[in-house]
């Protein structure tokens, strides 16, 4: 084939257009997964020689209580985020889409947490949680609730919940905006019809707004579920998974094993497990939500 024929061949042209994207995706997204799986069969510190272990890392993983508790924490985070973020975001979106003065001012400020990096949010909250100088304990002391003050991040019973709070704080505005956009797309006639039928605000919320937002709520839930299963940054910066693994997530555990303890073989095993958990849950939930939307 000469050059001219080649340039007229649509398969060749399509391949040229796709090539850069395919290279980036293969090297940095796709190949790492089988590569991680391969590493998971070895004992390896990341630099030296690799020692074949067969399935040892995998059997160790299955009997590793810290891995299971970190996975449980991921699912707790899913649950907390669903229960906290969706209702609050929906509530704020409903308030802000009503005709009130200053709505755009409130919206502008409410969105700001989304602009901050997870690391910045984590440290901001660390200082609010500080047992001696923090905002929260100082406030409790001021209003005479000394008995409620505690070491928010140092107490292993509550560290995970304390570390989850800033995640909610940062991501509520994202879903608030999504719900606001969806609410403003609901045809006004539906509300007028409901009003003529004598519906009050609550009724028009439950019989008009909520059903019309069904697919948006499902989409937001998918984002929250997938995001919470692979969450890392804020917990890593706030507690590093501590104290004593109380706030450990799969991703923080895999980081500590791989890059602090330099046990990359076992770290890869956790990586693949994290990938599989995220994959299975997304596939199951996406199937479920597709059916839901079709009904």
């Amino acid at each position, binding site marked *: 084939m000469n050059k001219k024929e080649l340039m007229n061949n649509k398969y060749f042209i399509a391949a040229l257009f796709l090539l850069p*994207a395919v290279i980036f995706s293969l090297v940095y997204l796709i190949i790492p997964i089988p590569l991680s799986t391969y590493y998971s069969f070895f004992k390896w510190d990341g630099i030296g020689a690799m020692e074949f272990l067969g399935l040892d890392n995998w059997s160790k993983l299955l009997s590793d209580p810290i891995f299971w508790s970190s996975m449980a924490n991921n699912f707790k985070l899913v649950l907390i985020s669903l229960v906290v973020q969706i209702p609050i975001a929906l*509530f704020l979106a409903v308030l802000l889409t009503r005709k009130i003065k200053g709505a755009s001012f409130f919206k502008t400020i409410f969105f700001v947490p989304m602009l901050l990096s997870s690391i910045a949010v984590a*440290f901001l909250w660390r200082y609010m949680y500080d047992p001696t100088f923090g905002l929260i304990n100082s406030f409790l002391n001021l209003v005479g609730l000394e008995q409620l003050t505690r070491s928010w991040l140092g107490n292993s019973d509550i560290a995970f919940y304390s570390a989850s709070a800033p995640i909610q704080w940062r991501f509520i505005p994202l879903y608030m905006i999504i719900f606001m956009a969806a609410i403003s797309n609901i045809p006004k006639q539906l509300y007028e019809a409901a009003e003529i039928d004598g519906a009050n605000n609550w009724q028009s919320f439950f019989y008009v707004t909520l059903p019309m937002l069904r697919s948006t709520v499902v989409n937001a839930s998918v984002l929250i579920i997938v995001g919470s299963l692979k969450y890392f940054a804020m917990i890593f910066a706030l507690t590093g998974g501590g104290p004593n693994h109380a706030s450990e997530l799969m991703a923080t555990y895999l980081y500590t094993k791989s890059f602090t303890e330099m046990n990359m073989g076992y770290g890869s095993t956790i990586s693949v497990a994290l990938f599989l958990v995220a994959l299975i849950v997304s596939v199951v939930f996406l199937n479920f939500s597709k059916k839901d939307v079709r009904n």
Partner: protein
Amino acid sequence: MIMINKLKQLVIYIFLSVWLLITGYPLVFLVQNSFKIRMEFFRNPVWSLPEKFTWQNYIEVMKSGFYIYFINSIIVCFISVAIIIIVSALASYAISRIDFKFNKIVYILFLAGMMIPIHSTLIPIYKITLSMGLYDKLSALIGPYVAFSLPISVFILTGFINDIPYELEEAAIIDGASRFRIFRDIILPLVKPAIATVAIYNLTLLWNQFAYALVLTSSPSKRILTLGLFEFQGQHGINIPLTLTALFLSVLPLILLYVFLQEHIIKGMTAGALKG
């Protein structure tokens, strides 16, 4: 009736003010304490105003080399976003306009990339980066950044190109223009609004990215802003007002951008979620 409406309004404003306090006060806390000197922070309650405003913390943070992190973040983010736009626009054009039989499959495979947790890829990427000789170089971050942003960018741009009427290209094809010319002269100018959305979406996401830099760079001169803040806190965490100053400086660029481009930023940051 008017009374009831007034009451309803009042209730709405009460709820909104409560959330305003929850969202806004931590930010006020951040700014007001960044102007205190260390001893004053220990002496007075956290909500007190600084005894006298001092820029001392700001000067100290900048002197510590913190400004390098801004420059590094800007370089890495802008180069990455430029590459993302070119690469994803090329791929989206092929998926949307060239009928090569596997369009649908290729598209779905790209989108499936969104399902991959980036932390599952950290060890292989660390290894790949080492063997390419890029470890502890700013350029080490560009490859992962581009790959990480591709799925959503291809998704937004393909959707947009699909909506462009085909007639615009037909005449050019009849005239014998090449695909590259059509892409450059007809498609690219038309997708400018979508490119702006993709650029803002990725810029904000990558500006706040952390994990890749944590794993792929080590020396202070190669730190991007999020990692720089993380290390700064590790070194100066005891000096709370100083660390709060570094924190405030690190979030300032996006907040300033937000002041000027609010609607674009909100649209850009929620684009992936809205359409996904």
